[in-house]
């Protein structure tokens, strides 16, 4: 079905169900309970999971398949955001034109930057992409202020034309009248679940983006991209030109980033240059590697993990810790808080760094590899004779 085999279809279905139920699954702790601060089922956080998931899925098409490590992908995200806000300013708050324009503009921008950067490979390619992104960032703050509104960031003002705005169309981002911030609350016992229109719109877009990524992974084109990573020399002497393949991958992943930027602006109609900064480019690299570069679901997991840590861990402060450890004698309580203090609040970067190091050292395939190892452990316990059926040393299925 959908041109996918059973395995990929199952994966897509699982992701779809998880997206559908996320508002419930991410709020496992009753509202008001002590653990409620670990809940992540808020519209804006869930939107961020999804949007960065899209960003990372696209990045993975370039980095995971071809091995070309771009350090400038946030530039495309930023461009996508600006494009969408401009559509809000010129046409009105319907998000469709904005998102379409973000795809177009980021694609063209990626074509230009990719065409030049892909003349080099390895570290030189990475540096070139970084240079272009930093240049865009700096220009957005200075010369391009008329387009980007400089430090204030681009936003919609009452004086903007908004030519397509009807008399009764909403005055905030909407999809043909469905407001993105519309949220339906359901209370079940002590739990409060929030079903947000913007989140579900992002989730549908991500499912489409994920589906396209699966198709690319399984296509001859995807195989060629892995060939680029494996041996460009052999590719050339097999009659293939690696350049257009890598450029196509670069443009596709740039468009994913632009789409993510467009969605970001659609959820919150604002675009600032800081979205293009190198830290944002680095973040998507971390997400992809943490989850598992070259795997299908890895980047989404990585994006979710990093955004969760960023938003949840950073909110925990010392007084919360004191509450948790209040059952200990005073001296011990202080000691425990003292020990944990560096890893929470603003120290969440430290925790992320440690997790990242552990994953890279012990699970080079990222979280996905961890999952596979656990899965194998269970399977081996389940049926010991299973191995006899498989040919020896079978290569792992790409992108499990």
């Amino acid at each position, binding site marked *: 079905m959908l*041109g996918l*085999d059973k395995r990929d279809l199952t994966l897509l279905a699982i992701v779809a169900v998880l997206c559908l139920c996320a508002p419930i699954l991410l709020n496992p702790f009753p509202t008001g309970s002590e653990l409620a601060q670990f809940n992540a089922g808020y519209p804006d956080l869930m939107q961020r999971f999804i949007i960065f998931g899209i960003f990372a899925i696209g990045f993975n098409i370039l980095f995971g398949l071809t091995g070309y490590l771009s350090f400038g992908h946030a530039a495309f995200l930023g461009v996508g955001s600006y494009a969408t806000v401009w559509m809000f300013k010129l046409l009105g708050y319907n998000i469709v034109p904005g998102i379409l324009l973000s795809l177009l503009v980021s694609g063209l921008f990626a074509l230009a930057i990719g065409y030049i950067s892909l003349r080099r490979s390895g570290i030189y390619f990475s540096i070139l992409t970084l240079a272009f992104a930093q240049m865009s960032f700096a220009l957005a703050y200075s010369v391009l202020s008329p387009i980007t509104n400089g430090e204030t960031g681009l936003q919609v003002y009452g004086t903007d034309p908004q030519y397509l705005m009807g008399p009764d169309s909403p005055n905030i981002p909407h999809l043909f009248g469905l407001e993105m911030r519309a949220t339906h609350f359901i209370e079940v016992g002590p739990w409060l679940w929030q079903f947000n229109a913007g989140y579900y719109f992002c989730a549908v877009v991500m499912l489409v983006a994920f589906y396209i990524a699966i*198709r*690319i992974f*399984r*296509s*001859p*084109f*995807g*195989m*060629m991209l*892995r*060939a680029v*990573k*494996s*041996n460009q*020399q*052999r*590719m*050339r*002497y*097999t*009659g*293939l*030109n690696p350049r*257009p*393949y890598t450029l*196509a991958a670069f443009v*596709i992943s740039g468009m994913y980033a632009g789409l993510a930027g467009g969605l970001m602006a659609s959820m919150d109609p604002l675009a600032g240059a800081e979205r293009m900064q190198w830290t944002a480019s680095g973040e998507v690299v971390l997400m992809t590697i943490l989850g598992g570069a070259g795997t299908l679901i890895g980047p989404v997991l990585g994006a979710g993990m990093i955004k969760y840590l960023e938003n949840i861990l950073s909110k925990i402060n010392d007084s919360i810790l004191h509450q948790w450890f209040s059952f200990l004698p005073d001296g011990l309580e202080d000691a425990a808080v003292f020990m944990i203090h560096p890893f929470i609040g603003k120290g969440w970067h430290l925790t992320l760094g440690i997790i990242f190091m552990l994953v890279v050292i012990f699970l080079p395939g990222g979280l996905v590899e961890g999952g596979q190892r656990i899965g194998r452990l269970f399977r081996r316990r389940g049926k010991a004779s299973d191995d006899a059926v498989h*040919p020896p*040393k*079978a*290569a792992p299925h790409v992108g499990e």
Partner: protein
Amino acid sequence: MGILEVKGVNKRFGGLQALGDVNLSVAENSVHAIIGPNGAGKSTLLNCLVGKLIPDTGSVMFDGQSVLGRTPHEINQMGISRVFQTPEIFGDLTVFENVMIPCFARRDGAFRLHAFETVMNEQSLVEQAEEILTDMNMIDKRHMHSASLSRGDKRRLEMAMCLVQEPRLLLLDEPTAGMARADTNNTIDLLREIKEKRDITMAIIEHDMHVVFSLADRITVLAQGTPLVEDIPEKIKGHPKVQEAYLGQAQ
């Protein structure tokens, strides 16, 4: 006129004259062996044919067209495939995928954005790939990571990748080096079979004289970058110049 005409090719690396005024004519549908001691310039000559190196002077014509100034992938698309001295394969891909890639390259050319097809749905290409793997006795290894193959198997895989393209000229740089005796004999049989079944020209570099004399129609002996003699195998065997060049080398 042969299908491949090399005229007056020179190549220097700094002070080293790797190729000195090489002339070579390979007749269509023949097997032409190039032999010579280590460092004679045999691989360098092949590099000049496939666009890896550009000769300092001279011309290289394939089927009436010059290959000089063309990129490697253009030259391959003209119908020249090469097996390298150290196997060049896609190590991260499976054996099957390694063979599928040249199938696509042959059908679709140097680039095609086939992002919405599925590899396994390309029935005719899958059949081609399976057929060549069966011919190569590697069909049961199709799902293996090619990096985990033995050296001999890598070489046979690379040969399969070249053969599946049905090139008009196949360049083989020591195709049996690193192979067990039995595999060497299989390779000889296979190359013979291919030669009989298809319209293919082969230029083969080989140190193993058993392979050379079982396959070659003509032999060129290269020493220090210059061809010493070129003749049919029977004449080459007892040639005094060849004995001299190989002094203490192969049998």
